[in-house]
């Protein structure tokens, strides 16, 4: 009897101790060191200009959705989303980023379209040692010449677009190419990258024509493209030039026998062009709202707030916010070095990417998608724009690490 009581007492003591240890561990996980006793996420983008539809206020909403999905609090402390309009001016963006880091305790900046602003903020993030997860900018310099330990390039870059579109189209039968290229560094680079991929994949480049930036008349260029008899006309331009060249190509009847491939094109461009004009075009997309139930569910929530479907950039802002918060929780601190270490070792599995990971050069590697714009009669409901042609596997989609000019990779 006595022995039994003793055993019971001991058992009780052990359980008590064990539960105490468990409690202590739970408590440890629940508390973390946070600068300023909160986590502040800064969404910086173009709110009213050229890129407002791709990111803009929608990105802020996406970040807020991510915070809500995370639970609204971290270690019992508040999470705040702040935003700023960089007006596509690098000095406005950099000044705001400095101010955010120096005086307002912002822990992470995301979105930031426009290459010049994106790189300027990467420099600031490096100097101030804060996490910067760019989703909006296309320049591959962010993970090459201008890379740094605190910068993650999350959604896409010009290499992925050129590579994805070039390779995937050749594989799906588009062997002969002709380029319509904006005559400046960006256009040249996009053309060169794509042409190299096309040739390497067994395709043929029949020629190229250069048009001035912001050209008003594409007729002579398009006639040359038509005369080339190439199957695919690669549009190595961006923004208004892409829109205008697509419109002109339609007017010339080019799209009857040839297929346009947009090398830097977004769903918002298709939306403003309309399916009638854009139908049949090929483009590479980082994410599409109508891919699966998970993305559709998110997009419906987004639609309720913004009255439009999310672009891949906005979905990526959602994903960066969630991924960052998870990393802070796992690291138990918002210290940038600890969080970056966590980010680079954890796989990303959410509605934006499955099995995505962040490489040493800061590149987030994930599947990309070759899309074809639907014909108006194929589109069943609003924003039903894309037909998936091919999933470009993560390993093939991005610039191989061996080619990276990033000093973090080459230094070894």
């Amino acid at each position, binding site marked *: 009897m006595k022995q039994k009581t003793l055993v019971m007492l001991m058992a009780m003591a052990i359980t008590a101790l064990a539960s105490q240890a468990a409690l202590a561990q739970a408590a440890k996980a629940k508390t973390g060191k946070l600068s300023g006793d909160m986590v502040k996420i800064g969404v910086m983008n173009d709110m009213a200009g050229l890129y407002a539809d791709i990111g803009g*206020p929608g990105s802020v909403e996406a970040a807020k959705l991510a915070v809500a999905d995370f639970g609204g609090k971290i270690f019992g402390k508040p999470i705040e989303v702040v935003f700023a309009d960089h007006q596509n001016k690098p000095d406005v963006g950099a000044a705001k980023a400095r101010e955010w880091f120096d005086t307002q305790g912002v822990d992470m900046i995301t979105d930031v379209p426009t290459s010049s602003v994106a790189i300027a903020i990467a420099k600031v993030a490096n100097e101030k040692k804060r996490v910067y997860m760019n989703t909006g900018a296309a320049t591959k310099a962010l993970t090459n010449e201008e890379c740094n330990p605190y910068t993650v390039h999350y959604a896409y870059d010009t290499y992925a677009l050129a590579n994805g579109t070039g390779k995937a189209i050749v594989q799906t039968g588009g062997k002969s190419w002709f380029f319509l290229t904006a005559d400046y560094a960006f256009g040249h680079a996009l053309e060169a990258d794509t042409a190299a991929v096309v040739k390497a994949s067994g395709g043929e480049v029949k020629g190229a024509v250069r048009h001035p930036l912001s050209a008003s008349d594409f007729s002579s260029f398009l006639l040359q493209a038509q005369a080339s008899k190439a199957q695919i006309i690669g549009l190595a331009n961006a923004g208004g030039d892409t829109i205008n060249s697509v419109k002109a190509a339609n007017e010339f009847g080019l799209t009857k026998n040839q297929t346009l491939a947009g090398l830097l094109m977004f769903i918002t461009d298709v939306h403003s062009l309309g399916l009638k004009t854009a139908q049949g075009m090929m483009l590479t997309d980082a994410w599409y709202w109508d891919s699966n139930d998970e993305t559709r569910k998110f997009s419906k929530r987004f639609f309720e707030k913004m009255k439009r479907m999310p672009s891949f950039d906005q979905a990526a802002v959602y994903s960066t916010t969630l991924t960052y918060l998870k990393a802070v929780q796992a690291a138990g601190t918002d210290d940038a070095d600890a969080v970056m270490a966590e980010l680079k070792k954890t796989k990303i599995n959410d509605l934006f990417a499955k099995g995505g990971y962040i490489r040493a050069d800061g590149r987030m590697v994930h599947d990309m998608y070759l899309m074809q714009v639907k014909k108006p009669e194929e589109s069943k409901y609003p924003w039903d724009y894309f037909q998936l042609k091919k999933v470009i596997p993560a390993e093939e989609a991005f610039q191989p690490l061996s080619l990276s000019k990033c000093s973090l990779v080459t230094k070894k």
Partner: protein
Amino acid sequence: MSGQRLSYLVLLALALALPFFVYPVLVMKVLCFALFACAFNLLLGYTGLLSFGHATFFGTAGYVAGHALKVWGLPTELGLLVGTGAALALGWLIGSLAIRRQGIYFAMITLALAQMMYFFFLQASFTGGEDGLQGVPRGTLLGVIDLADDLHLYYFVLAVFVFGFWLIYRTIHSPFGQILKAIRENEARAISLGYDVARYKLLVFVLSAGLAGLAGATKMLVFKFATLSDAHWHLSGEVVLMTLLGGMGTVFGPVVGSSVIVTLQNELADKVGSLVTVIMGSIFIVCVLLFRRGIVGEIAALYKRALGERA
């Protein structure tokens, strides 16, 4: 006169103390744009020449100074001088072409030449195209003072601004400045009085371009980059707005105008989101409709009227 000197001293003391109350990077930006607007005002407000391509000097100096510091590895002060020198040279080139015409034609020629420079910067390899010339080191001043520290840099920028402002002030109040004003009021008459108007115009154009360049090079140093937006015609338009809003042809007008515009751009950026450009436009409309003399101009006019009534 002593009252005026006292007010300048008070302002200087305020400027010296400002970084302890306001975020220094923002104040530095304001100072750079204020110098830019002052240089522009010398041309528009005191000589009556509306250049619509002034950003090209601002941008050119930024690029050249940035290249000098980053690639050639020149010391900071020399880099700024090289940048300013480039703006002076370009000012002489563009000026000697543009001053042959008056009014709208002058504005159009400056705009056209500035656009040419813009597309040159877009294409040239040393500017980095759309990515911009990034990561320029701030370096040290005279090899001693580390400019990486925002506060050190602030006092350097303030010194540059005070120098530029003083130069403009001296120019306006010199006999040379009197002749400029005469040209503004009545060019034909200035010619009839025997002045070689073309030479005066060219000289003030080059001076204005050089000071705009100094502002551009300094701004590049503050932010450590020069990009296409520094040479874009938007900026040429913005500097007109700053000058008109503050008060064209007043000494302090451009300073006030640029402070208002830059502060609004910065402060509204994270408050109203997409409305920034709309607000700027409305301010400009209100300014043109209701107070054409600009903020400082209207205050000065009120002050004068009050003095007149008392007398």
